[in-house]
């Protein structure tokens, strides 16, 4: 039994408060981070750790990690299709590898293997494209046939007598999951230890601009001055950027997910089917975590629907018919900020001191460490790191997109 638990049981280690208690807002900060989700907290952590910038406030309108950090389904992978994307997510997975140790907090990063199933010729071609790009950039990824799929995940229904038989898959052995909330909490704790202030229940209501700069941030708890502003508010990116007069090429669409009641372990691999618009993995608690494509229409409200569950489960039972009698436990929705090219937007906007971390669609959680680290670098040095440059904001104006539609988890 690990020592920490024994110490705790014997009363040798005093419980110490992990998440900081609420403080008064100061009149100004060097950096104001709007959004206390995983991304914002990670950026705060790396600002303090890598760059010694600690006069930082993270402003969260609700509770820590309460937006899409709480609502995503915690899959981490790097088997993207564009070299820019693959490099970026590969660096993120590298950071995830040691994140528990770095944060001294178990984020339960667990490699399970990840199968993206192909049910058509065309899908098989896309899988090969991804595999080739991945391997070229040193990411473990391979096209496998139906026999290999059956061997890697015996729970799958390999029958040919279904509407969309499984022809093969893209196998990504390093595909992983992490405890999404813990990632936010871990970053928050360590950032706070280094002096970052985290303000929950503090909603940003506007920005005061002067001479092409944001000079102060208006909040529900008063006004704070700012050297620089970083916004990391997935689901609200357009609204917050709009307060600074910046228009983003983003459509916000609900993305839903659900979990079953807890079951004994039967599924080891993360299973994704783009053609059937569904994915499933089984959590440490034994719950099946399931989801699909974004809703068919934009809406800035995270509400659940019946349609979503019906469509999802019809497909899910084609993949694993034995789940028919499993009770569903909970369903919910998050908000996906979709960009035209299915890639995020990171870097500077047209304002001198406004930094943006947006457009995270359905792929934001897995980028939490790398985005935090590189956005911190960007804010601290005022230079856009190479790894982020492809994701710059003005690429849309110039039609220099980073086309990831082919590797979005379950398509558009």
């Amino acid at each position, binding site marked *: 039994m690990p020592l920490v638990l024994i110490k705790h049981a014997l009363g040798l280690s005093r*419980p110490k408060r*992990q998440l900081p208690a609420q403080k008064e807002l100061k009149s100004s900060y060097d950096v104001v981070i709007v959004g206390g989700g995983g991304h914002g907290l990670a950026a705060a952590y790396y600002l303090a750790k890598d760059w010694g910038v600690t006069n930082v406030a993270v402003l969260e309108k609700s509770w820590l990690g309460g937006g899409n950090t709480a609502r995503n389904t915690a899959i981490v992978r790097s088997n993207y299709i564009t070299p820019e994307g693959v490099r970026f997510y590969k660096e993120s997975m590298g950071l995830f590898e040691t994140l528990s140790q770095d944060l001294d907090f*178990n984020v339960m990063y667990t490699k399970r293997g990840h199968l993206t199933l192909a049910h058509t010729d065309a899908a098989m071609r896309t899988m090969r494209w991804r595999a080739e790009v991945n391997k070229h950039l040193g990411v473990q990824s391979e096209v496998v046939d139906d026999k290999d799929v059956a061997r890697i995940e015996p729970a799958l229904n390999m029958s040919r007598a279904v509407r969309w038989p499984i022809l093969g898959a893209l196998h990504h052995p390093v595909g992983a999951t992490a*405890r999404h909330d813990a990632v936010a909490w871990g970053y928050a704790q360590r950032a706070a230890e280094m002096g970052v202030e985290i303000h929950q229940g503090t909603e940003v209501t506007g920005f005061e601009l002067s001479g092409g700069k944001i000079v102060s941030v208006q909040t529900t708890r008063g006004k704070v001055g700012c050297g620089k502003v970083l916004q990391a508010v997935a689901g609200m990116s357009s609204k917050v950027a709009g307060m600074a007069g910046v228009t983003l090429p983003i459509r916000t669409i609900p993305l839903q997910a659900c979990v079953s009641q807890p079951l*004994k372990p039967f599924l080891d691999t993360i299973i994704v089917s783009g053609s059937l618009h569904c994915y499933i993995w089984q959590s440490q608690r034994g719950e099946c975590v399931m989801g699909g494509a974004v809703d068919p229409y934009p809406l800035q409200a995270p509400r659940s629907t019946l349609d979503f569950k019906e469509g999802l489960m019809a497909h899910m039972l084609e993949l694993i018919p034995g789940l028919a009698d*499993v009770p569903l436990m909970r369903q919910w929705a998050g908000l996906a900020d979709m960009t035209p090219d299915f890639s995020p937007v990171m870097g500077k906007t047209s304002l001198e001191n406004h930094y943006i971390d947006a457009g995270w669609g359905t792929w934001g959680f897995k980028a939490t460490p790398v985005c935090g680290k590189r956005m911190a670098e960007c804010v601290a040095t005022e230079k856009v790191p190479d790894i982020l440059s492809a994701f710059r904001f003005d690429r849309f104006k110039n039609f220099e997109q980073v086309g990831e539609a082919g590797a979005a988890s379950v398509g558009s």
Partner: protein
Amino acid sequence: MTRLPAPWGKWIDRTKSLSFWFEGKSYPAHQGDTVASALLANGQSLIGRSFKYHRPRGSYSAAGWDANALVQAGSKPNLSADRLAVQDHLQVKALNYFGCLNRDWGRLVEKASRLLPAGFYYKTFFTPRIAWKFWEPVIRHMAGLGRVDLQAAHAYYDKEYLFADVAVIGAGPAGLAAALEAAKAGAEVMLIDEDQQIGGSLNWARGGDGEPMAKLAGWPRISLLEQASVQALFDDNWLEIVKGNRLYKLRAKSVVVATGCYQMPLVFRHNDLPGVMLGSAVQRLMRLWGVVPGRRAVVAAANEDGYAAALDLMDAGVQVEAIADLRAHRDAGPFAIEAGQRGLRILQGVTPYEAHENNNRLAGVSLAQIMGEGRCGPVFERIDCDLLAVCVGRIPATGLLSHAGAKFAHQAHMDLPTELPAHVFAAGSVNGCLSLDAAQKDGKRAGALAAKSAGFEAETPPAPLRDCEGVTHPWPIFAHPAGMEFVDLDEDVQIKDIVASMQDGYDHIQLLKRYSTSGMGPSQGKLFWPHVKRLMAKEKGVTPAEIGASTIRPPMGGETLGHLAGRGFEPVRLTAMHRRHLELGGVMMPAGAWMRPAYYGQDKNAIEKEVRAVREGVGLIDVSTLGGLDVRGPDAAAFLERLYTWTYAKLAVGRARYVLMCDQTGVVIDDGVAARLHDQHFYVTATTSGVDRVFRLMQWHNAQWRMNVDIAQVTSAYAAVNLAGPKAREVLAKAGTSVDISKEALPYLGVREGMVAGIQARILRIGFVGELGYEIHVPAQYGEALWDALMTAGQDFGIKPFGVEAQRILRLEKGHIIIGQDSDALTHPFEIGMDWAVKMDKPFFMGQAALRAHLEKAPTRKLVGFELENDQGPLPKECHLAIEDGEIAGRVTSVARSPALGRVIGLAFVPPGKAQAGSRFQIRVDGGSMVGARVTPVPFYDPKNQRQEM
């Protein structure tokens, strides 16, 4: 099996005996029993083991409100024994034990509970890095409840739609009154109830009047949906209801939520033992199933409910040792008075402080005087007993109201609805009207309002006053130095876990929930949230009202993946000639939602033979799956000008022209042909999988532009073939046509309407394969006749049907691209040599602005034809990469061995500098080796395109 005599046990049929299996042992039961009631009737109170500590658990609510009595029945996991009806020979297993249910060695975890505080897994198991690899499977193995049987047969599930003016959820006193009132006003009412029989508390509560069905007699406008549970109340009164293996979807004009209350648990040491039960559970077991869950009982009371339960127990012959009334003084309610008169021992200001266990169940209760909020004096007495009935308060069952977006306020230590969305009403005890009289009056009011909101005239009776004061104890939580007071039975969360989570800083209700896992279990905290909020409020020094509510999300419990999936509906589209393809030995493959022949016959050279037939003689391919759109009206040409990149205004009637569509970012998304049949009528084709999107975009844009056009998607209205090859004209002539098909009268890209083999047809002189060819479109019902006529006419010319695979090779020989295969999500027309199809000098077309920007920039890649330098080595596959100086330089999009040319040819994206004919590049193939390729002009075959113009 011991049962109380009638009238106890009103839901069992004592004349019908059943038997079922639990943990390998057979038990007798009656028709009408649940697994929990039958087990308890047989003295089996231990039903399962808890999630974390593997503590013994039994039925707690007898109503499935918690995860205490979850069992496995055959292949079905996580069913509540409280609600699972006994069927003859049913096989039931307990969940989550190691070894055997009675002696579960998993309970060792409880001994180690001091080692496992709230959130323990965040604090450890990660150093060294390898540790998690070891612990993660251990944790996974310990977690989880029921088992999935992957081999089990898929049960039949289906769905049904329902409609109602007024839906009433819950057929207790309030729901019945509401349904009657709404029906009186003229509304069609759907009354939905989850129990075996309607009536709610009328069936089991002391003083219930017992004949609920009679109230509904003579009301044809009330439809009853029994044993059906409402899982969710979605936007616009869209109700998800589960009954048996059927999912009902009900749209109602208005909804009355009369879901009643849960009873509140009492939190003290070992409050989870089998034998500790909610008072309502005891009453249900006795009145509904004739089961006495104990011989000697103690009742913990904080309201009249406790006295009613005690009197019921006495009437059933149970020895009631004492009533521990948590209050310093009791109200003079009728049941309390009766209990006093009947000589019950009543202790005021006293609580059970610890429950004692023997043989996996309750053996006694230690009582202590309450000294203050949650504080007790020393234990003054231990009473031996095998039943503790808990009646310390109510929890309104507000889940469905929460789904609908209601707001709640804290009143009388309960969360009661204050603001309801339009067309949603709450009635009865969920609305704070607890007594029978108040509940019925409130139901009447809600029923009238619901009818009115559904458009009927009704007089609204006045709202009764809420009578919920003094029912719910403010603090039925008693910490013990040794712990094991369970706040959340599902998740084994103790008081100290809540406190520790708060001290760790997780002091927002949502953070606490996630960190402590309280409320995350199968019952989603229905019974446990109020206590969690009390403990949080105390720790924070605020009132429970200030903590706020946690969102209750669907479903309410009981829906399975099978309910949601139903029968599934994955349409397969078949062309009119499908039967012919099968007769000819066609090997079918999916193409969008359609099935198409990939090739015909088992011959391993089948594809090559098909290719040769087209090049040398004549072939016939079914192209019915191509999208077809009729665009008609005065603005038809102008409409196409805006949507497609080329120009159509001056296209002559009787001519066809290629169409290419870009999205707003200039990315190529579809192609096809526009045939001008009339000045104001174009027949436009689209790709098989792209036509739905094209049709949607056409409608979308026409809604914005408001042009004078009519757009119809006619894909499935027409069947079509492509008759291709040097002998095509002869075959068509032989089949018989009213159209002059001579080269002069119907040249390449000509379009005519006329008869073919006696069938009205649209004839387009186009083709994808680069030979003399006719695309012939006929009404779908004549597809098979057309196919037969052409095959018969072609017999003398050696006609061969050909499939998608041959077509892919034929078109590749011609260098024709397939959108989606030879283009990707960023491809613009100039990269794929489509400059000729883009009219940049038009005033506007979709994607034009983006394409202007592209033209100003240096190109980054170009699609080229290539052939291999060495045909005999390893062959590239589609999507293998071109590599230049160790970097990705491009990608193969199509590749095949050309029968006509006798060598491997393909299309690939390469850097612009490598795009000139003769340039060499390297392709990395499977296994990592490189093969050389040389850029070759396209078309590879018939470069001057003479054959299609013959």
